[in-house]
């Protein structure tokens, strides 16, 4: 939802530019961009349309004040909610690319709006491809940490099961914290298969790497980036999100290890 406060009666063209910038910023934030990227991209587009923009980025909202470059006394202020969307770096990259095309080619606003809708409306990646890719990535981590072939297979299976469960539970709008807890528990239990049946030489590596797909890496990295650029509110917001998810992950993992007598306690 976007709320606007017009300091003066803004012409339709200015309003359209403001709404486009608000929608653009909302999507960029929603798909996992850092605050500095949002500031730079929105500013680049605004300048291409002869505007200057002041942005306030909050964890769930973005506020923009759009000024005419020639007239500093009239502005259009918009508050918009951050788009609820999973982290998607394809959208992130294409939106950044769009900002450069607008700046370099002077793309008309109507065309830019069409491009934005096309980018955000694209089909999501096929889950049948993402699932094995995540399992392979976790198997590679297992190998990196010194796991043998058995440990890699166990990690792959535990990841497949956990990630499949995660996507299904999130589709059903189960609370994300509960999803992390449940998936960490399931992956830990399945990850200790070689420990339980005495197969393989590196059961601890399999157990440890079977939950790595749940680590909230992007919020942690983004929070650090925001911290560097002094967007402290967003930084702590993202950090709090990541810490909560990591605690749920740890609780599920610990419960799984206790249930499987994995030897940590």
């Amino acid at each position: 939802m976007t709320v606007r406060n017009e300091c003066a009666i803004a012409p339709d063209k200015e309003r359209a530019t403001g709404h486009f910038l608000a929608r653009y910023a909302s999507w960029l934030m929603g798909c996992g961009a850092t605050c500095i990227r949002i500031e730079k991209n929105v500013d680049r587009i605004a300048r291409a349309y002869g505007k200057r923009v002041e942005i306030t980025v909050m964890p769930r909202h973005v506020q923009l004040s759009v000024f005419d470059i020639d007239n500093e006394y009239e502005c259009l202020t918009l508050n918009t909610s951050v788009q609820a969307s999973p982290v998607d770096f394809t959208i992130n990259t294409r939106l950044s690319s769009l900002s450069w095309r607008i700046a370099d080619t002077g793309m008309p606003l109507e065309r830019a709006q069409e491009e934005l809708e096309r980018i955000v409306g694209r089909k999501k990646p096929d889950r049948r491809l993402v699932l094995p890719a995540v399992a392979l990535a976790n198997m590679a981590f297992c190998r990196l940490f010194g796991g043998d072939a058995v440990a890699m297979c166990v990690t792959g299976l535990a990841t497949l099961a956990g990630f499949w469960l995660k996507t299904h539970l999130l589709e059903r709008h189960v609370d994300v914290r509960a999803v992390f807890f449940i998936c960490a528990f399931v992956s830990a239990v399945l990850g200790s298969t070689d420990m339980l049946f005495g197969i393989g030489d590196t059961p601890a590596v399999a157990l440890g790497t079977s939950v790595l797909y749940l680590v909230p890496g992007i919020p942690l990295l983004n929070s650090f980036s925001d911290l560097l650029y002094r967007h402290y509110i967003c930084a702590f917001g993202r950090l709090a999100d990541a810490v909560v998810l990591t605690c749920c992950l740890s609780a599920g993992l610990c419960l799984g290890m206790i249930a499987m007598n994995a030897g940590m306690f």
Partner: protein
Amino acid sequence: MSVPLIVWSCTAGTLAVAALAGVVNLVCDCVKRRWLQTGSERELLFIPGDPVRDDDNDYDCTE
């Protein structure tokens, strides 16, 4: 039977059954008939005339 083995069997068994149900649903979708499915409470208790709510307030900031 030891506790770890029971926990492992229950977890693996439940997931195997869920995966099997998924496969069966996939097959049944081809003949337009669902054999087994899970639904929300709202879907189960929906009364015609209830407002249809599009709840898109989930997020996934994990990877």
